[in-house]
């Protein structure tokens, strides 16, 4: 049975940016629990769906996409020893890890300041995730997403394109503690 998980691509999930106190312990534990569940049945490979690297960061010498590093870190901490791929077919031996989040413009203290469209956009994304509405995810507005600093949109579109046969959805975390919408979602798929 294929499983899929969505986690955010927040830098604070990476150990190199850790402070003495975890700024988001609930988020981190939800991510680790969901990824632990993802690999519970020992899939041979994990398909990591991640947004492309930020071109500005690439220009500054950081070429590995942030989402890939978050995926690798969560899988490492969960003890996964199989292959992690960014392309390829999804079969019964494959688990899907999507590293994606919503708008970073959800308030006056958000990284991109307040954009009044952000909440409605994120609500529509959350509905699509909860309903496992593949066509809605695949047709997310990439331009609006970019304007709202919703860096996860390309990865969510790829999740939609897989058109997985989902028969149960669990929302383990939803929140915007720093003005960026995060979700931790688990999709149970029919075999």
């Amino acid at each position, binding site marked *: 049975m294929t499983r899929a998980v969505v986690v955010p*691509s*927040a*830098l604070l999930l990476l150990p*190199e*940016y850790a*402070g003495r*106190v975890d700024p988001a312990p609930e988020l981190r534990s939800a991510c680790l629990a969901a990824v632990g569940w993802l690999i519970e049945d020992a899939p041979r490979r994990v398909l990591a769906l991640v947004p492309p690297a*930020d071109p*500005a*960061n690439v*220009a*500054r*010498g*950081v070429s590995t996409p*942030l989402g890939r590093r978050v995926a690798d870190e969560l899988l490492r901490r969960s003890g996964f020893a199989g292959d992690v791929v960014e392309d390829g077919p999804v079969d019964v031996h494959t688990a899907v890890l999507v590293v994606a989040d919503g708008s*970073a413009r959800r308030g*006056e203290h958000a*990284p*991109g*300041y307040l954009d009044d469209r952000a909440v409605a956009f994120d609500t529509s994304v959350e509905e699509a995730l909860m309903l496992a509405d593949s066509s809605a995810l695949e047709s997310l507005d990439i331009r609006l997403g970019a304007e709202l*600093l919703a*860096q996860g949109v390309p990865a969510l579109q790829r999740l939609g394109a897989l058109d997985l046969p989902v028969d149960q959805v669990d929302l383990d975390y939803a929140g915007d503690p720093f003005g*960026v919408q995060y979700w931790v979602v688990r999709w149970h798929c029919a075999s």
Partner: protein
Amino acid sequence: MTLRLGRHAFDDDAVLVMAIVNRTPDSFYDRGATWSEDRALERVGQVVDEGADIVDIGGVKAGYGPDVDATEEIRRVAGFVARVRADHPDLVISVDTWRSEVARAVCAEGADLLNDAWGGHDPELVRVAAEADAAVVCTHTGGLGPRTDPHRVEYADVVRDVITATTGLADRAVAAGVDPASVVIDPAHDFGKNTLHSLEVTRRLGEVVATGWPVLVSLSNKDFVGETLDLPTGERLNGTLAATAVCALAGARIYRVHQVRETRQVVDMVWSIAGRRPPATARRGLA
């Protein structure tokens, strides 16, 4: 090289304190305390008494907030520069702006230094500095536009990026006609940087000083201090002064600050420890 800031020249070993004077209703630290022109002028008198060498006058909050267009920015700062110039002829007047039209207006009123805190966003600004024979601060922002916050910004080597960007801007200023003795670089803590980046820039500031350009640091009460010590804006003085001491030991020349007296003491003390400044008095065991 002698540092020349408009009509003022300073020796190689001079270390300067630049006091922040906001002509804004909403800046993060003072929250409009000097929004009225008279209060701002009082603040200038106070910081001069406390030992400031430079005042840095800003008309637009650095962070997100209501739009302030060039006309409004000029209204806030240009006439005020003229008043400060008249009252304090020996004071270096800096204006914190990224806009060339504002730069032109304040230079006409006697500004000596243009603090281009958004890193060359308006390439015309250095031409204005050249025409007015004003000095300019070249700032690292990591490519961020004015009044934006960093979001998931990363660097393979943040100090290398600081050096490449600021020396590139300095070269551009000189090519535009700014006197090389009138160019200062600023690694810009918190601008385009997370707290770990700003700590690394502080730790490795000597590499920035080694470029040979005079270095300005703007550390005062910033988020990287607050996050490091988990303290709100009003309780960051000790952390600011610790960072100031580290930058002073590395050789930073200009300190942009809210608290002048405290900064002056820390910088003078470190400058003396570093052997760059004799003690004010030395009697102990010397009789």
